[in-house]
């Protein structure tokens, strides 16, 4: 969040030499998707140099985690990437579980997969809606939010919360999903494919949309991987890198799905790729519904780490003691480090947890995909015109809560 070294320079243009101008875009700009400031050095309408300036939303979540017990820190992870709270819960819990060497019951793993894939669709819907509204397609926004609302209603039904669910816990899940939740997910599954067709009807063949996105923000696969980009942006450049396939977690290896890739690597390609990803997520959700048994454990049996069930806690002495200890002093994993990566809607989301053998983590670090993908923004927009800057910011799909943490 420091002042960036941008100064006006004299550039040679077709009609002689001209002075450049520095334009301050943001932090309060509707198309920067939050408090992102970009210093743009312009020659006429062409961007000569771009310097992103961030940190306006820095809340020190990594530092706060060091002052909380392992279970308490889950609620903080919801608030980083607020379009993907379940994914953040998942990566943190997987990291702590890896540190503990804890196995999670299959049923809980499938419910996790189902919830995270619903979250992926809802995140892509927000992305599509806001990206389209930035580029002038107002109605798509309304349709996308209509369907996102349905997903949030499922979250509220299952987890009790629409957004900051904290539903995934260390060793399993917070609650048993209520009766009738499967029907609600099935209803959503039946509705959604035709709704995705609707968005495509509005955008895919639209001449204005193609004019604003085709050939804009092109980056080669070599540049993208050198700049550590991951997620749809990397896959649209033609490189298949998806953690769900390459390093499966939470039983993703048992699901049959495709990871779409493209070679055009422009804003339009990334749009098509994300739409295809929504359809793949629907396939995964359908398979997960088939795998989830109506009855079964949702938490692993690990006294002292995973809280006992309500009934057990009220009737058994040991369970009561464990319950008390978990919520007062927490539990202490063995000293060591664990780094887990999952595929968030935005790219590779990683969590690094270091333990020194005490009930509070020594260090928690999140590898946030938005932060690292944003690094490539100057590469995408330098040499483009000002209006394409908006398309390029949208196409990376940043969430400022995730960037600044």
């Amino acid at each position: 969040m420091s002042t960036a070294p941008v100064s006006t320079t004299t550039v040679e243009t077709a009609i002689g030499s001209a002075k450049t101008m520095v334009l301050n875009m943001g932090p309060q700009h509707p198309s920067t998707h939050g408090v992102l400031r970009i210093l743009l050095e312009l020659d006429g309408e062409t961007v000569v140099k771009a310097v992103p300036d961030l940190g306006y939303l820095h809340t020190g979540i990594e530092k706060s985690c060091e002052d909380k017990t392992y279970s308490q820190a889950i609620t903080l992870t919801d608030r980083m990437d607020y379009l993907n709270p379940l994914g953040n819960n998942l990566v943190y819990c997987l990291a702590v579980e890896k540190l503990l060497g804890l196995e999670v019951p299959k049923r809980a793993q499938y419910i996790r997969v189902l919830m995270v894939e619903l979250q992926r669709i809802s995140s892509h819907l927000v992305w599509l809606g806001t990206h389209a509204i930035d580029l002038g397609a107002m109605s798509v926004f309304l349709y996308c939010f209509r369907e996102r609302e349905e997903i949030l209603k499922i979250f509220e039904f299952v987890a009790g919360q629409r957004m900051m669910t904290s539903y995934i816990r260390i060793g399993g899940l917070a609650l048993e999903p209520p009766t009738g939740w499967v029907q609600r997910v099935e209803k959503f599954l039946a509705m959604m494919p035709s709704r995705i067709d609707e968005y495509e009807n509005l955008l895919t063949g639209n001449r204005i949309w193609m004019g604003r996105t085709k050939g804009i923000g092109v980056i080669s696969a070599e540049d993208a991987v050198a700049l550590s980009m991951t997620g749809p942006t990397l896959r649209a450049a033609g490189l298949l890198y998806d953690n769900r396939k390459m390093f499966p977690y939470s039983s993703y290896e048992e699901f049959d799905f495709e990871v779409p890739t493209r070679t055009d690597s422009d804003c339009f390609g990334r749009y098509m790729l994300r739409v295809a990803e929504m359809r793949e997520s629907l396939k995964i959700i359908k398979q997960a519904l088939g795998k989830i048994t109506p009855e079964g454990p949702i938490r692993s049996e690990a006294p002292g780490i995973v809280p006992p069930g309500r009934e057990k806690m009220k009737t058994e002495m040991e369970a009561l003691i464990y319950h008390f200890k978990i919520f007062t002093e927490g539990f202490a994993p063995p000293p060591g480090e664990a780094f887990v990566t999952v595929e968030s809607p935005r790219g590779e989301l990683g969590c690094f947890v270091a333990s020194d053998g005490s009930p509070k983590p020594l260090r928690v670090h999140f590898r946030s995909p938005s932060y690292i993908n944003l690094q490539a923004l100057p590469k995408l927009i330098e040499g483009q015109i000002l209006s394409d800057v908006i398309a390029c910011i949208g196409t990376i799909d940043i969430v400022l809560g995730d960037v600044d943490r």
Partner: protein
Amino acid sequence: MTEKGSQSSNPAVEVLRAWSANAIEEVIEFRGETTLVVPRKVLVAVAERCKNDEKLQFNLLTDATCVDRFPLEPRFELQYHLVSIPKKNKLRLRVRVSGDDPVVDSLVPVWPGANWLEREIFDLMGIRFAGHPDLRRILLPEDWEGHPLRRDFPVEGYRDIPAIATRYTRSRP
């Protein structure tokens, strides 16, 4: 729980040992993750080898972070997480740095993506990266004092209200 010097299944250990005898200080295997502790002086050379060796091809630097083990010395541990997309392999490089002289060579020449990762570590942990093209604070204001992710920095900070608010209240009667 940490098994030191044990046999590792990661091909990187063999390749790097064959390349140079003093490239690896220690091999740590924990929960299926391989960590190579690398001397500070050879970090860039090891990183280049990891990226360019035919058998390794660690083309993606996915994450870099730092752990502060204050009051132990050497207190800082830099962690670089590498991924090889063609070989489906993961590796962690670790460099130990003392608190008196927290300087490490920058990995930006090897992976340009290290740029913001190193800026973040510099900002929050106060490690300096020699040869970094643009080592400025990234998340905190430039007039911020100290490096908050250090263990000796209190969670609640040193100041209860930001300096800018104090300035504002002082100017009013």
